[in-house]
Structure formats: C-alpha cells, structure tokens
C-alpha cells in the first residue's frame, strides 16, 4: 500500500470550503474506484500526490514522489495563482479539456495531458428519464453556478419561441435565477438550491437540459461535465439554438437520449479516468527511476496515456 499510495489534495481542502463541483468530479468520484487513493492527509507518506487545482508550491518542490497538477480552469491566466510555477514543479499536468491542455502546454515544459471529466455511473444508477408519452418538449432545466447565468439568459428567447414554458434552474444557495427584465412573466421559473442529494431528481423533472456555451474568456476551456451528467440521466442536452430546435418532439428526445446514454456508458465512466491516471503514474515512475536527475525539456518525456 505504501509504495503506491496516492493522495489527492483538492481545491476544497485548500480553500477550506465544501461542495465544489470540480473536486467532486475530478477527485471524490475517482476515489470510489481507486483503493490506493485517498484525500490528502497532512503527514501521510505518499508515492503520488495529485494537486487538484491546489497550488501548494512549497510541498511540490520538496516532495520527491510523483507529482501531478490537475487543472479544470485556466488558472494560469490569474497572475496570483502560482499555476505556472506549480506546473513547472510537477511531473505532469492533467487537464479536463483539450483546449486547456493546449493553452497550458504553451507555458510549461511539463508534459500535459487531457483526462476528461467523467461520471460516476454508480451515482446515477437506476435514475433515467422516461420520455415516452410526455409529448412535445415543454420543460427545460439548467444547472450550475449562478455566475454562469449569462449562458442561460441567452437561451430564453428561443425557449419562448419554441413553446417551452417552464424553466427549472438548479444553482447555488441564495442566488435564484430571474428572467431577463424584458421576458419577466413570460414563463414559469422554478428555482432549486443545488444539493448533491436532490439535484438529479430536480433535473429529471425536465424534458431537456440546456447547456449553452459562450465564446468568451474561460468558456472555451470549460468541460462538458454538465452535458455528460445529463446524458447519464437520460436527458438530451441542447448546447445551441439549433440543437434546441432539433429536440422539440418526444421522438427526437428519445432518439437523442438513447444514443447519448450509450455514449456515456462507453466513453465517460469515471473508472476509465482511474485507469488513465494509474497508467500515467506508472509511466512517470518508470521515467523518474530511469532519468532521476535529467532536466525536464519540452518534448523530453515520452509519457503516453493509454490509447492516447
């Protein structure tokens, strides 16, 4: 156990707060399929430490085991985050998206790989939306952090245009969604506070899930984790006006939901992420043992993910 013990130091631990989506998706859900891994404990000896959006440079510089910086946001764009220095101090950087991998790899010689966000399928086992005999699409759901409400605002005119008259919003505490002023009173809005115990049930009240993406800033680096969670629940997802228009009938929803449900089972099972991490760690260990003092150079590593 000692020789391959993995500690995951999470964003939640560093921030001394709870219920961050990134920690749940990129750390806690992996632990269910990774007996050698645990939440980082002060004083514990680890063979590998994964810093999940956790910038603890002093430790990374001192620790002589395998060090992985896991990113899900473009934190290197914030001057004060130590993201770049952490990336340089680690053996590899993992990212939640290819676009994030691309931007990070431009600023560090440390090998960078995308391990996409995936779903703990056991957490949604037995929960699947039944679309039969529900008729045309009438209820849409949106979930996420309230700071991303602008992506919902831009969908509202199209919802009305297509006869969708009920919007379910599941967001953070004390931040209810209000329709843009010009659309006030035009549709029913139900706000729920996000809670891991209830969020799936609230989403299943809807016919489709909205996950419009914006083009600006951090959006181009964001993962599809909300989409794949909705797909895992049997809910089709509209990412754009065009996709919304294509999901207005019961038949279209059933067809899309079935196809995506299979896709999630095939490509987005979080246990696959654990396999990828284990493979990555094994290769780093081999590399470190073979070239213990060799300086890191761009392209100097030949580490490959399984199937990459």
């Amino acid at each position, binding site marked *: 156990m000692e020789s391959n013990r993995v500690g995951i130091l999470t964003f939640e631990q560093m921030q*001394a707060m709870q219920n961050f989506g990134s920690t749940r998706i990129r750390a806690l859900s992996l632990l269910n399929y990774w007996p050698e891994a645990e939440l980082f404990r*002060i*004083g514990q*000896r680890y063979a590998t430490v994964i810093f999940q959006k956790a910038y603890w440079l002093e430790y990374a510089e001192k620790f002589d085991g395998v060090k992985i910086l896991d990113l899900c946001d473009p934190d290197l764009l914030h001057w004060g985050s130590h993201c770049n220095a952490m990336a340089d101090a680690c053996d590899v950087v993992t990212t939640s998206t290819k676009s994030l991998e691309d931007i990070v790899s431009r600023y560090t010689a440390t090998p960078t790989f995308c391990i996409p966000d995936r779903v703990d399928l056991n957490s949604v086992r037995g929960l699947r939306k039944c679309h039969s005999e529900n008729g045309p699409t009438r209820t849409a759901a949106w979930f996420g952090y309230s700071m991303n409400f602008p992506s919902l605002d831009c969908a509202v005119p199209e919802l009305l245009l297509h006869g969708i008259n009920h919007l379910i919003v599941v967001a953070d505490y004390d931040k209810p969604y209000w329709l843009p002023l010009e659309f006030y009173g035009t549709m029913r809005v139900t706000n729920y506070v996000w809670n891991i115990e209830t969020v799936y049930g609230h989403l299943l009240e809807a016919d489709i899930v909205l996950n419009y993406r914006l083009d600006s800033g951090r959006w181009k680096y964001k993962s599809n984790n909300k989409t794949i969670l909705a797909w895992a629940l049997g809910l089709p997802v509209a990412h754009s006006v065009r996709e919304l228009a294509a999901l207005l009938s019961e038949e279209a929803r059933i067809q899309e939901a079935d196809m995506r449900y299979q896709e999630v089972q095939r490509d987005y099972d979080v246990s696959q992420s654990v396999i990828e991490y284990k493979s990555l760690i094994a290769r780093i260990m081999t590399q470190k043992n073979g070239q213990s003092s060799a300086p890191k150079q761009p392209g100097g590593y030949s580490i490959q993910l399984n199937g990459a």
Partner: protein
Amino acid sequence: MKFKILDVQWHIGHQYEMLKFPFIEWSWLMQYKRRGFSKSIRGDISNMFEYVCCYDRNVYDAAILHLDQDCLDPVSWDVGKGSVYRDMNEIIDDIPKIVIMHGTPYRPESRSPYNDPQWVIDRLQQILGQNHMIVNSQQAARQWQCGIPIIHGLDPMEWFDLPKYPRVVTTLSPSGMPSYYDRGFLDEVKTALRRRDIIHCQIGVDCFPGSWDEYRELIGHSLIYFNPTKESPMPRARTEAMLSGACIITTPYHDADTFIQNGFNGFLIERDPEYVADLIESLICEPDRAIVIGQRGKHTAQQIFGWERFARTWESLLGEVTSSHKTDVA
C-alpha cells in the same frame, strides 16, 4: 543528546521561543492550512528547523500538535485548521503527542451548540485522548478543566527599551473573535482618546511594521501599552511591551492580576473606556511616572516571563513524557 521533535507551523511568536531550545532538533511537518510565515514577525527562522513532507516512524521522540477552540468546530475539523490536528493525530500513533492549546473554551460568536463552553470542553476531551495538553495560563487550565500551564518565556535581551514617546499602542489583528479580544472595548477607548486628541495606534491596523526590528522599535518607543483582551490566555504582545519598558494598562484576566500590582508595575482596569482614557491622558501628562511604572513592569516581566524558565519547564516535560512513553512501550 537532543530530543527529536516534530512540530507544525502554527503561532510563530510562540514557536520562535521554542525553536531556540538547545535540547531539541526540530522538524516541521508541511501543512497547507497555515501558509508560509512572514519574515516580519521574527525574521527568517527557516534555518531553525527542517521541513518534512510526511511523518516517518522511528525518527522522532515526540510530536507537538496545536489546537484552539475554533479547531473543534465541525467545519474547521473537516476542512479548516482543525484538520491539521485531526490528520496528525491519526497518523502519528507511536510516539507521545503534546498538544499546545492556544485558546479557551470561549467562542460566543459561533453558532449553537458549538458556542456552548461545555460543548467545547467535552469535544476537546473527545479528541484529546491520551495526548498531553499544555495551556498558556492558569485560568485557561481551570476553564478547560485540564492541561498543564506553561507560561510563555521570552529573551529580555531581544526587546528594545528605547526613549519613550507620548504614544499608546495595542498589538491586535484587524478582525476575528471580537468578544474574545473585546475589540468593542478597544474601539471605545480609541474613541474616548480621540476626543482628547490622543490618537491610539493599533499595530496591525493603523500601522504595519515591515520587519521585526521595526516592530520592536515601535513598541520600544511607546510610553503606554493598552491590553483590552477578555479571554486571550497571556497575550504575548503585552509581555513584549513590558520587556520594552512600556507602562502596561491591562484587563485583569488570565492571571494578569497575579503579577500586576495596580499602580505599581502597571494598571489593572475594568471595562470602563472613559476611566481608561483618563488614565492614559494623565500618564502622558506625567511621563516620568509612566516610565517608572514601566521599568517596574519590565523587571516583573524579566522575573516571570524569562526564557530560561520556559526552556527548563519544556525540557523537564519532554523528559517525563518521553521516558514514561518508553516505559509504557516496554
């Protein structure tokens, strides 16, 4: 032979005095809840210990863990500074552990039931187990109903007794635990002084010394030091001011009434802002009197808060704790 002790960064002012113990070889466990120490507090102390990433068995004679009343709150225990104790206490299971309790069971600002002193005391008993606990005052030991008091000790030579300016100061952080430190009392005294055109200096709010030297010079030139705290067990900043020859005006709590004789080597005051402001004004008008009282206070501090006594007490404690542990193991 030196004791090999594992500690963790917590309270630099307190730990600085311990790092000087000649009978200990220190390792500090890296932790992320309390970020790197500021060199403005005690200069660069990084050469006084070695950082280690993890706990290794068969290396240390004992470990020092830290707690205060806030650590016992469930949220702090899960993800806050309480988790430093939690993790270390779980992982270190083969050597004696000495817990320095930096606070008291008093936390009225917390939510119910965690603001009930009895809940805090009970919770401490639960998590303390067989660990040895040190507290910073006799009153703290009575409040916790356990703990060995070891009163802090400082090297008098490290504090500057400089020519006094007509200045009254208090060293207190900007926020947090308002009842514990009685920040309201401090604010009322500051207001009352302002009406007398005396501008009080709260170090850490009104000014920020850039180095330890700057801090010591600021205190060393101060005629009066005012301590408003209600619960802080033996405020170190008050001792620093005493060793710097400042005339002390202090609340009587946490043993202050056992070493301050009112009007002789300092002043013990009740919670009466106007009285305190009058007293400060009168002392500023009679600096010779304030200086004489300050010098007596300095002498008291040299007698009571000496570093040698502090070091001997810790050496003795470590000897007892480690030898009894070895006996138990055998």
